[in-house]
C-alpha cells in the first residue's frame, strides 16, 4: 500500500516544458510607502530557557507586528515559532508581549510603537513551549471545571424567547476570543502563580456569561467561591485594560459575580431566596 499512498505526483503534462512564473510588476497604488528597517529583539528559547535574539525587518506603512515576525521567519529564522490564524483580531491566537505589554501581534501596528528597538516576548504567565508560543493548556482545563449551560424548559413550540436587551449583557462576554491576555496580565497568575486556586479573569467572564444567561438554570457560585477563587481578585482592573475585545471584565463580570457570591455566602436571606426561587442547587457550605 505504501507506494500507492505516497504523496508524490507525476503530472500528466509530460509534454510541457518546465515553466517558471514570475510575478508581474505590482500595480500602481498597491505598494505601501517604505518606512525603512527596524530592529527587533525576539525571545528565542524553550521550557529550559532562552534569551533575546536580534533581527531586523523591512517596514512599510500599515504593517503590524505579526507581519514583521512573519518576515523574520521567512527570511532569517525559518524555525521561529509563533501562533496566529485570522490576522484580524478574531481568533485570539497571536498573543504576546510587545515592549512589555500583553497584546495581539496582529492588531498592533508598527506605526503606533515608539521609535527604537521593538521587543517581543511570549506571555509571562504561562510556561514557554518555544519562542513566542506558550503552554496555555491550563486554561482549557479550567473551563472543564465550570458547569456547562443548562437551559430552562422551552416554550410550547420547543424554542425560547429572549429580548434583545436581555441578551446584550451576555453577548458582551461572549465576544471573548480566548486570547488569554487578561490571564497573562493578572498579577494573581502572573506574579503569584496561583493557577491551582484561581480561575482568572477569562473564566470569570465565562462564568458571568453563563450565570447571566437568561435561560440558564445552573448555580456556579460554589465554583466561583472555591475552585475559582474569585476572592483573590482585588479589582485592579488590569485585565480590562488589555482586553482586545474591550470587554469590561472587572466592572461587568467580576464585580457582579463577587456581589452574588458575597450575598449568597454571607447573607442567609439572599441565600434562601436564591435557593427557593432562582436556581435549583443550594450552594455547598465552605469547608472549614
Amino acid at each position, binding site marked *: *500500500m505504501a507506494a500507492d499512498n505516497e504523496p508524490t505526483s507525476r503530472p500528466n503534462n509530460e509534454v510541457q*516544458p518546465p515553466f517558471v512564473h514570475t510575478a508581474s510588476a505590482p*500595480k500602481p497604488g498597491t505598494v505601501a510607502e517604505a518606512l525603512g528597517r527596524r530592529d527587533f529583539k525576539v525571545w528565542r528559547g524553550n521550557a529550559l530557557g532562552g534569551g533575546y535574539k536580534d533581527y531586523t525587518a523591512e517596514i512599510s506603512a500599515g504593517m503590524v507586528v505579526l507581519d514583521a515576525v512573519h518576515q523574520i521567519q521567512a527570511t532569517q529564522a525559518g524555525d521561529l515559532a509563533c501562533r496566529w490564524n485570522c490576522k484580524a*483580531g478574531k481568533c485570539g491566537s497571536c498573543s504576546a508581549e510587545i515592549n512589555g505589554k500583553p497584546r495581539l501581534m496582529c492588531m498592533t*501596528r508598527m506605526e503606533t510603537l515608539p521609535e527604537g528597538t521593538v521587543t517581543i516576548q511570549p506571555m509571562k504567565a504561562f510556561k514557554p513551549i518555544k519562542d513566542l508560543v506558550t503552554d496555555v493548556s491550563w486554561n482549557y482545563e479550567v473551563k472543564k471545571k465550570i458547569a456547562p449551560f443548562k437551559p430552562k424548559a422551552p416554550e410550547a413550540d420547543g424554542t425560547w424567547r429572549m429580548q434583545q436587551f436581555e*441578551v446584550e449583557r451576555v453577548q458582551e462576554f461572549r465576544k471573548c476570543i480566548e486570547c488569554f491576555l487578561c490571564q497573562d496580565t493578572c498579577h494573581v497568575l502572573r506574579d503569584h502563580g496561583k493557577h491551582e486556586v484561581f480561575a482568572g479573569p477569562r473564566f470569570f467572564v465565562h462564568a458571568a456569561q453563563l450565570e447571566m444567561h437568561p435561560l440558564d438554570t445552573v448555580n456556579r457560585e460554589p465554583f466561583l467561591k472555591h475552585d475559582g477563587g474569585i476572592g483573590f481578585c482585588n479589582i485592579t482592573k488590569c485585565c480590562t485594560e488589555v482586553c482586545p475585545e474591550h470587554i469590561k471584565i472587572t466592572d461587568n463580570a467580576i464585580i457582579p459575580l463577587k456581589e452574588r457570591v458575597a450575598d449568597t455566602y454571607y447573607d442567609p436571606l439572599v441565600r434562601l431566596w436564591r435557593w427557593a426561587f432562582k436556581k435549583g442547587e443550594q450552594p455547598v457550605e465552605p469547608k472549614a
Partner: protein
Amino acid sequence: MALDIQTIEHDVLVIGAGGAGLRGAIEASNAGISVGLVCKSLLGKAHTVMAEGGVAAALANVDDRDSWKVHFADTMRGGQYVNNWRMAEHHAKEAPDRVRELEKWGAVFDRTKEGKILQRNFGGHRYPRLAHVGDRTGLEIIRTLQDKSVHEREIKVYMECTIVRLFKDGERVTGALGYFRERGRFVLFKAKSIVMATGGLGKAYAITSNSWEYTGDGYSLAYHAGADLIDMEFVQFHPTGMVWPPSVRGILVTEGVRGEGGVLRNKDGKRFMFDDIPENYRNQTAKNEEEGWRYTQGDKNAMRPPELLTRDHVARCINREVKAGRGSPHGGVFLDIAWIKERIPNAEKYIQKKLPSMYHQFKELGGIDITKERMEVGPTTHYTMGGIKVDGDSQMTTVPGLFAAGEAAGGLHGANRLGGNSLSDLLVFGKRAGENAAKFAQENKAGAVAEADIESAAQWSLSFMDSPKGDENPYKVQQDLQVMMQDLVGIVRREDEMVKALAGLKTLWERAKKVQSQGNREYNPGWHTCMDLTNLLTVSEAVTMSGIRRKESRGAQFRDDFPEKSDTYAKMNMVIRKAKDGSMELIEQPTKELPPELKQVIEEMAK
C-alpha cells in the same frame, strides 16, 4: 521500529475542529463510542471562528414566506445546478433544527421584537435568512460547540496536532499519522472510521481571507488515499476583501455590510452594480436605488439591491471596474455604509452595533472610520466549493470508512456558494457525518495499519530535516506558488495561462522536493511548511486541471476564452482521482438527474 511513535486508538477519528469537526464529534460521541478530535491549532481557533455574517436557515422568523423549498431553490440557483441536489435538500430541510439546537446549547443570537432569532439579508437569499450575532457569528458557533464538546466524556481532543497521511487496510481507511507541533513527536491514530473536516485551500493563493491552516490538507490526504475529489475548479473569490494597507490585503469584509445597506461605487461615485444584472436574477433584483434601500430595511415588496447578487458575479463586476480604470486609489472599489446616515437617525451607532468587528477592523488596521468614510475593497480568495466527493446521504467518500464534512466536502454549493450556507453546511453535514461514521465504526471491526506504511510516512516527514535533497526555502516556494495561482488560475481564467500554471506546478514540485528546514522538530513552522507544500501542490494541480477541462463560465469559474455557459458542462462534474501510475486523472462525470419533486420545487420558486 526505529522511530518512536505513540499509538492511540479510537472508534471514530475526526480530523479538524472547526464547526464541522466539532459538530461531527459531538454527534459521534452520542453513540457512546470513543471519539478522537484532532486539530492543527488550539481548540476554538479554526476558520469557523472567523465567520462573520451569519448562518443560513429557513427559520422564517423575519419573513414567513421563507421555507426549506425557497432555501433549496436559492442554493441550487446560486450553485448553477451542478450541486449535489440531495445534499442541498438535506441542508435546506435540516438547517433550522441545527440552528435551534445551538440555542439549546447556549448560543445567543440577536433577537427579533418577538424575542425570536433575528435573520438578516445576504446575497442570493430571497428572504432575510441569516441568523447572526452582529458580525461575529462564527465565534458564537464555534464557542458553543467547543464548550459543549469539552464536557462530553467520549471526546478526546488533540490540539496542535497535524495529520500527514491516511492509512488503509485493503480498500478501507484504518488510521492516520500525525505529529504534535510542540515536540514534533509522531502519533499513530487507529480508528474504525475517519471524518475529514479539514476546511479549504485558500493558502494556495496570494490574496486570501484564509489562515496558514488552509493548505488543502484534507483534499490532498483523501486524494492520496484514493478518494475522488469533485469540481475543484470552483474556488470562491469573495468580492469584498480589504485592499489597503497591503499587509491586510485579503482580510474579509463581511457581506453583512451590504446586507445592512452598504453600497458599491466606483471612483466616479457610480453604483456600477446596476449596470450588469444577470438574466436569471433580473426579476429578483431592485429596479432602482430606492427599491434596493427599501429591501435592506425589510420592505417585503421590494427586491434586493444588485450589491446582493451572488458573490461570483459581484467579484467579477468589481474586477471589471478596476481593470477599466474606474477603481479606487489602491486597486479596489468603494464600499460605503456611512451613507445610510442620509436615511436613518443615529446611523453611526447603528453601524457600530450591527457591524462591530468591521468597525474595529477598519479603525485599527486601516485607520478608517466606516461610520464616516468609505472602505476600499476588492476580491479575495475565500472558499472552496469543490472538495472530497461524498454520498449525499451518508457523507461517506469513495473510500470506505472515510467521511467528509464542511468545506472539506464538495457538492452542496455547486459552482458558487451563497453566504451563510457554509455555517449551516457545517452543522447539518457535520452531524450527518458524525452519525454515519459512528454507525460505520459500530458495524465494522478495527482494521490493520501496515508497519511499512507508517515507517515510510514518518521517514518522509523527517527527510526535510535529516536528509534534505537541496536547500530551497519552503516559505519561498510557497510564496511563488501563491503568486502563480493568483495570476494564472484566479478570478478570470484562460486556457493558455492555466496550461502554463500546470507546467509551473511541475517546476514547483521539483523545488518542493528540495526544501530544507532549519532547526529541530520542536514547534518548527519551517518544517511544517515543508510538509504542507505537498498538499498545496496537489490541490493546486487539481484546481488547475479541473479549471482547464471545464470549458465554460459557470459560477466561480469565469473563462475569458469561454465566457458563456455550456449545455454539456451544465450536466458535468469534474472528478479528480489518483491513477494507478500515481498521476492525477480527470474524469467528466454526468450529474445525477433531479427527481421530479425537486424539479418542481425549483420551477415553482422561479416564478
